[in-house]
Structures are given as C-alpha cells and as structure tokens.
C-alpha cells in the first residue's frame, strides 16, 4: 500500500469511529452531506505534491501523524470551557471565542447583535434557521481536486455561524478568536458559514492561536455568501506555534455589485496553508485578496488564491507579500480565471518577497487562464533581498543598520497592512508585525486573549 493510501486509510478509520458521535450533534441537513463528502475524500485523498495546487507543500508532516484524538466536543468540554474563560481584550469588537473549533458555551450558543445580526454555533443555527442553512450550506465550498475540503464536510462537528440580514450594517467588527488548546496532540476541523445578505455591511476578524505546546492540526472550511451590493471584509490573523499545522479554505461567493476584501496575516505557525477562493458571481463585483507572512526557522506558509471572474465588469486585485528568514519556505500560487463571458474584467496580481538568508526559499506561481478578449490583467512576482540603496539611505541619516533593516522590512509589510480599513486594527497589526520582526512576539499579548 502506498504512503498516500495509508494516510487516507487512517482517516477512514477515524471517520468510522467518530461519524456517529459527530452526527448526533449535527442537523440532518448538514449530516446529509457527510457520506458523499467522505466518498469524495476517499477518491481524492490528502493532497500531495502531485496536485498542482499543492506542488510545493508537503502536508504529510501533519497529516501522517497519530493524534491522540479527533476532536469532538463532549458535555465535559463545555463545562471545562466555561471554567477556562478567555476574554478578548477590547478592540471594540463583538468578540467570540472558539475552542478547538467549537463554540464553548452551554447557553447562549446563538447571540443576537444590533441590527438583527446573529452569531454563534453552526449546529445551533441549523436548528433555528433551517431555511438559511439549506440555502447556503455546502453551496460554495466545492472542489474536484482538494480532498481536504471534503474531509471537512464529512467530519467537521461544528463551527461559527454569522448571519447579517438584508440592509444591516454592523458598525463594530465581529472578532472570532480561534483557540487550540489541549494537553494531547489533536486534530480538529471546523466549518464556518457567513451569510451577508444584500445591501449590508460587515467585517469579520479571525484570530488563530495555539495555547498549549502540543502538536495540532486544524483543517477549517469557511463559506461566505455576500449578497448584491454588500460590503464584506475578512481579516485572518494567524499566530500559532511551530508545532501547529493549519489548513484553511475560505470560499467567498459574491453577487452583483458587492465588494469584498480578504486579508491573511500569517505572523507565526509551523505549517500554514491558506486557500482563498473568490467567486465573482455577478456583474460589477469587486474583490481584493491580500496576504502577508513572516516566517523563520523551519516554518512553511503557502497561500493559494483562486479568483474566478464568471461575470462581466468585475475587478479583482491580489497583493501578497512575504519575509522569509532562516531556512523557512513560502509559496504563493495565484490563479486568475476569466471566463468567456466575463468581458470588461480587470484583474491584477502582485507577489513580492524578501529572502533574508541563502537557505530560505520562496516559490511563486502565477496562473492566468483568460477566455474573454476584453480584459485587463497584470501580474508580477519578485523574490529579492533587502534593498541596499534604501538601507544606506536610512543609515546615512544616523539610523543603525539593524534598525534600518527592521524599518525596511516593516515598510515592506506595511503595504499589505495599510489595506485594513479599521484604523485601530491596522495600528495593532503594525505593532504585531513590528514585534514579530524584532523577534519579540509570543502571543498577541496586548492583542487578544486573556485566559485563565
């Protein structure tokens, strides 16, 4: 038996052992997806380097490992979670904590925010809003090549649900703090669904953290529906330890004249793979996909972006930047698909990277598939060192070399950060990135969580 089938076999056993428990928690509608999804996973397996979209990322380090358990919350976990409260330091957000992918409260699993907005557990929402779930769940996260999406559909026990009804504008962002905490090695999956109906506006911040030094693997799928003429921003801040593997798949489905921005800030983590899928599914839709990563030691960060221009006169803009130290590695794969009818498309892509050592490595791969003729597309990628001329310029004003390098790296990173629209968050990201560059970042200390 080959290694890959062995690994897939491992997950078959996990599925068989857990599917009953998982299904007990979940709604019949969500459960109806599980078996076909698992069959699809059996067919596709865990992506290997043979898969074009995973060409430079070896997932086996994390997927070929015996985790102590596949995480499914039981009653005692909710009690423990109640004792283990985490407060989200005030960023003036609607803060929500997810523990190992579940919503760790016994009561109040679905909260109502101003403007008729709902946030809470997906399972809870499936009971309360069956129509919404049936309309949107599983509609956007689709793939014929990535088995991990199907593995998530098959087995994710719960996740976050956000519903922004028509015409609502949430002034404060919703902040989801995603904690991984366990005394043993665990594999967890969660499934999020965000519905932003037409003419509304919302910003979601997702913070990924690890709280204990065990080996963790997370495989998360987020589906986002953005209705006509709505604005939606999602910012993901990743700060996990070197022994954590994080695979995220975010599917953003846009209707006509909607505007979205996604921003992946990978500050720290062992292996991070973020796949972001933008479907421009109506005329005049606009999306920006940003990413920043800072790696050192043996860390590996892989950003995969897929922008699908399915309708005319849509705009997309990708900007991804990385700073790689030590022997860390990075990947950027940006696909732009312009379908035959998508005339008047504007699609831009830029990927710039700074490599600080001879051992760090960056693979950058643009992938443009254009089937319409009235299209404006551009892409560019650079991998280079710190600009010596700029370094000398700063030094010549009395700034020492070390500080000057920091300033240049910070400036490089800031070009991504400056696209965050919420000013206090932008400022906070600036500080976190500066701390990270100085090597001072442990947890997002001032930032997010106080647990105990």
């Amino acid at each position, binding site marked *: 038996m080959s290694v890959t089938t062995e690994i897939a076999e491992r997950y078959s056993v996990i599925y068989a052992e857990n599917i009953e428990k998982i299904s007990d928690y979940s709604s019949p509608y969500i459960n109806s997806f599980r078996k076909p999804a698992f069959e699809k996973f059996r067919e596709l397996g865990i992506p290997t380097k043979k898969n074009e979209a995973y060409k430079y990322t070896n997932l086996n380090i994390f997927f070929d490992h015996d985790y102590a358990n596949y995480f499914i919350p039981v009653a005692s976990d909710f009690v423990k979670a109640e004792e283990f409260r985490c407060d989200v330091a005030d960023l003036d957000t609607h803060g929500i904590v997810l523990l190992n992918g579940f919503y760790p409260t016994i009561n109040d699993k679905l909260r109502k925010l101003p403007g008729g907005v709902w946030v809470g557990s997906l399972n809870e929402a499936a009971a309360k809003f069956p129509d919404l779930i049936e309309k949107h769940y599983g509609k956007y996260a689709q793939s014929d090549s990535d088995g991990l999406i199907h593995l998530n559909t098959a087995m994710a026990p719960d996740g976050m649900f956000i519903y922004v009804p028509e015409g609502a504008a949430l002034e404060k962002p919703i902040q989801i703090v995603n904690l991984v905490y366990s005394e043993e090695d665990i594999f967890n999956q969660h499934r999020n669904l965000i519905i932003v109906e037409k003419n509304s506006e919302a910003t979601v911040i997702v913070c990924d953290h690890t709280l204990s030094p065990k080996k963790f693997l997370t495989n998360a799928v987020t589906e986002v529906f953005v209705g006509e003429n709505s604005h939606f921003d999602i910012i993901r801040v990743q700060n996990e330890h070197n022994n954590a593997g994080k695979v995220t798949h975010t599917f953003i489905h846009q209707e006509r004249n909607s505007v979205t921005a996604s921003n992946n800030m990978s500050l720290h983590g062992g292996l991070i793979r973020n796949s972001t899928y933008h479907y421009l599914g109506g005329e005049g839709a606009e999306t920006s996909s940003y990413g920043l990563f800072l790696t050192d030691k043996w860390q590996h960060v892989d950003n995969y972006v897929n922008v699908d221009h399915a309708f005319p006169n849509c705009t997309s803009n990708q900007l991804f930047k990385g700073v790689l130290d030590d022997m860390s590695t990075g990947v950027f794969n940006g696909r732009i698909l312009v379908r035959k009818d998508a005339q008047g498309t504007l699609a831009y892509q830029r990927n710039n990277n700074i490599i600080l050592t001879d051992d760090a490595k960056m693979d950058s791969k643009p992938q443009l598939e254009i089937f319409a003729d009235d299209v404006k597309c551009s892409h560019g990628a650079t991998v280079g060192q710190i*600009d010596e*001329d*700029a370094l*000398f*310029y*700063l*030094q*010549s*004003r*009395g*700034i*020492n*070399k070390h*500080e*000057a390098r920091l*300033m*240049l790296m*910070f*400036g*490089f*990173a*800031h*070009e991504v950060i*400056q696209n965050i629209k919420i000013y206090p968050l932008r400022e906070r990201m600036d500080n976190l990135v500066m701390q990270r560059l100085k090597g001072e970042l442990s947890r997002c200390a001032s930032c997010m969580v106080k647990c105990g």
Partner: protein
Amino acid sequence: MLVINNLKASIAGKNILKGISLEVKPGEIHALMGPNGSGKSTLAAVLAGRELVEVTEGTVTYLGKNLLDMPPEDRSKEGIFLGFQYPIEIPGVSMVNFMKTAVNEHRKHNGIEPLSASDFLKMMREKKELVEIDSKLANRSVNEGYSGGEKKKNEIFQMAMLEPLLAILDETDSGLDIDALRIVANGVNRLKRPDNSFIVITHYQRLLDYIVPDVVHVMYDGKIVKTAGKELALELEEKGYDWIKKEVENSIVA
C-alpha cells in the same frame, strides 16, 4: 573640520578617485564642479560611507577623527549629511517615523533625551516652514511618488531636521525648476551658521547665484584640477569645461 589627503578609491576594481586632497574649514561653503564622470558623486559617497566604494589609499580626517573607520550612521550622528543626487523611495516607511527615528538616534548619541511625540511634531512643523516644504509630504512614505523637485526639497528638509556640521549636497539642483531651486538654495542659506560647512556638488553655475561659495573646485578624471574663488564658477559657465580638459592634457604632455 574636514581634511582629505591623497584619497584614492575604486568601484568594482575601476579607479575613480585618483588622489584628492581638500580641506574644509568651519563656516566655509565649497562648490565642487566638473564634467560628468569626473568623480564628484564618488567623493560624496566615500564621505558618507557607501560600502560600494573601496578606498585604496589616502586619509580622511573629520573633526580630528578617522572618518573612514566609521559606519555611515556614526558619520551622520557626528554631523555629516549627504543630500542624495537620487533620493531613494521607501514605500511603507512614513517620513514622520523615519525622521523621528533619525532625530532620536542623533539625540541619543549626544546624550539628550528623545523628543516627545508632540515636541517632535512641533519641530517638524518649524523645519517644514523653514524650508518651505509642503506639509502633506511629511505624511507620506519616504519619497514615494514624489516628483523630482519634491525629492530634492525633502533632502533639504531632512538636512534641516538633522542640523549637520558638514553637509554634502550632491547635485541637489539638477533637474529643478527655478522655484524649486530657489527653495533649495534658501534652505541652505537659512541653515548656514558660522560653525557649519557645505560642500555643494553641481554642474551648473545657476545654483551658485543663490548659494555663494567661498571656494570653487573643479574635478576632472578623479582629481581636483583647479581651485579658486567664486569667480571660477562664472568662468566655467561661460567657457564650459573644455578649456580645463585642455589645460590638464597639456600639463600632462608638458
């Protein structure tokens, strides 16, 4: 203040400076002129500490210290300022942050407390007025998207912030229209004190209508071939550099 003695330097193995000797005293303005490729900018780069240039012979003494031993940042903190011919664009680094870091490094070097945020902004405001720089520039990234003239004015602004003892202005006038030129020159004149000195590198007499030099040097082929008073600049404007080249060539033949 500055004594350069028989300085020779090369870039990538090519000899550029072939024995420069020059002394600048406190309060003096020196103009350094000469045709393209004569080594003016290389001399400026050596004085500011650019690693690209390798000094092969000679000495440079600044305030009694061996300048060539100092890293560029220490030279700056000791009072040397280079106005760049081509100021560098640094996206993502704001002028405010850049100057605050630089000014406070200088203060630390001099044993003075760092400026508070409000005092610093006040200082920026004053210096901006002094050099007539558009206040919006200060809120942008360093030189990013500035026009040529704005970049040069920004050099003068930085000079005003750092108050150097010896400023070397490398073709700060090149490409400027008359208004920008006047702003640059006024900046220099306002910053002039009895104890600080300038080396103004230029192609053109025009700048010297506004900044009156004490001494004018002409460089050619890596050497200073002529030194005289401010009238030399006028003569160069009138006659060009050919007569100097001829003089040098004749003297070699002779």
